[in-house]
């Protein structure tokens, strides 16, 4: 197996275990490249990539842009807040106009679930989903898997708990698909109100008690409470959430083994995890960011390989 089975990266749901392994293997090579004195390779020098961000982002956008530049692609950036979307242009029109300027690949983040799948059916370019509503965020899941593999050697048989706002999280869904395909056991943990109905049907364990969940796992992925997506109150107060689901040093030290702490960012320090935990030696949050560039280079390199 040496090429992807898909033409777009729309979600982890749509790719195979072999695809994931190919991406992670290729990312290892790119991680070596970005740690060289000269971090750039010419692989995508003849391609133009558009980054369309209809929703705010710091890490993902920067990470994609760096990945593109290190592959020598030409990059155009687009942010919805400063564009004609405000004047009423539709998604397909916006994208087709950008493609008319001869763009080969589109990286898109959008607030609507399914936006990337929709776009892949309408336009003639490679599409990479950089987050569509509460649906999927495939590159985040891939970089999380890469980071776990990097630290623990393999993913198969490992126990990973995802803690927090599962209901509004695209990171949770993509992570569940990705980790399960690679043979890990996945548990979700959070208040009942933030648990999607039927989440058990994905084959994950559900645990409402944080301490029990942490005792079970090898890796804890702490999610942010997405207040911007919560149109109603899901819990009485942030303070109460922190008391029940916030991770502090006391809790971490009380566990019977050392676990890895991950966070997709942005961190709300003092809410889902305290500063001490985020900066502790068990946290691999900044490694995740570094790995993100390598994984995104791998994804774009492999997708470009399918362009003839």
């Amino acid at each position: 197996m040496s090429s992807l089975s898909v033409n777009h990266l729309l979600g982890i749901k749509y790719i195979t275990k072999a695809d994931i392994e190919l991406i992670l293997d290729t990312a290892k090579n790119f991680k070596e490249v970005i740690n060289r004195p000269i971090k750039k390779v010419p692989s995508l020098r003849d391609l133009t990539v558009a980054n369309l961000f209809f929703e705010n982002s710091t890490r993902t956008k920067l990470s994609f842009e760096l990945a593109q530049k290190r592959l020598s692609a030409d990059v155009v950036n687009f942010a919805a807040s400063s564009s004609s979307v405000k004047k009423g242009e539709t998604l397909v029109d916006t994208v087709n106009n950008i493609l008319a300027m001869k763009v080969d690949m589109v990286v898109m983040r959008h607030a609507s679930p399914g936006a990337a799948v929709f776009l892949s059916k309408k336009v003639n370019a490679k599409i990479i989903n950089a987050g569509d509503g509460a649906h999927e965020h495939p590159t985040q899941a891939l970089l999380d898997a890469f980071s776990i593999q990097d630290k623990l050697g393999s993913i198969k048989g490992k126990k990973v708990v995802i803690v927090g706002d599962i209901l509004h999280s695209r990171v949770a869904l993509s992570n569940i698909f990705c980790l399960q395909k690679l043979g890990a056991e996945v548990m979700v943990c959070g208040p009942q109100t933030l648990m999607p109905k039927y989440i058990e049907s994905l084959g994950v364990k559900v645990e409402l008690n944080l301490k029990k969940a942490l005792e079970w796992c090898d890796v804890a992925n702490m999610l942010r409470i997405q207040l911007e997506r919560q149109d109603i109150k899901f819990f009485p107060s942030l303070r109460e959430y922190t008391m029940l689901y916030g991770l502090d040093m006391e809790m971490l030290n009380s566990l019977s083994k050392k676990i890895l702490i991950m966070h997709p960012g942005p961190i709300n320090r003092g809410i889902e995890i305290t500063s001490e935990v985020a900066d502790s030696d068990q946290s691999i949050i900044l490694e995740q960011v570094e790995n993100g560039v390598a994984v995104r280079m791998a994804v774009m390199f492999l997708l470009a390989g399918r362009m003839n």
Partner: protein
Amino acid sequence: MKPRVILEGEQLEVTITRLCHQLIEVHDNFQNSVIIGLQPRGIYLAKRIHAKLSSILKNKNIQLGELDTTFFRDDFRRKELIPNKTNIDFIIEEKNVVLIDDVLFTGRTIRAGLDAMLAFGRPKDVELLVLIDRRFSRHLPIQAKYIGKTIDSIESQKVRVDWEETEGKDRVTLLTDKD
């Protein structure tokens, strides 16, 4: 037709020893020289040369690196490419580099290798060593300085280099389409 054996066993050993002595003539004790093998197949020859040189010169400190050219190739998207590991833990700035590959054919891999190498500094000079030089069908003005054996072959033929480490036997064969 049976595949034609070009080099084998002791013959191959003699050739490698000769290449090493040629290298020593130019590079003396390898104080300021490094060896870089090209992935995926050049690294085995590079390791052999390195081991032989180390034993002849009784110098355990000759630097050896492995370089992958995948991201620098010009046929990306024309054929499937699988990246390999680059493993160079030294800087080649102002060094004499001996670039090693098993077979020189079109010259495109070497071209990519020359580009890929630049990420590790500006070498003083670069020389090319190959086990087999396929004389015809060069696409670029690239020639090797040290050559194990030169052969004449047509484009549809293939040169296959087997190593004891990977295939169980040291052997170079020329394959034609029907083999």
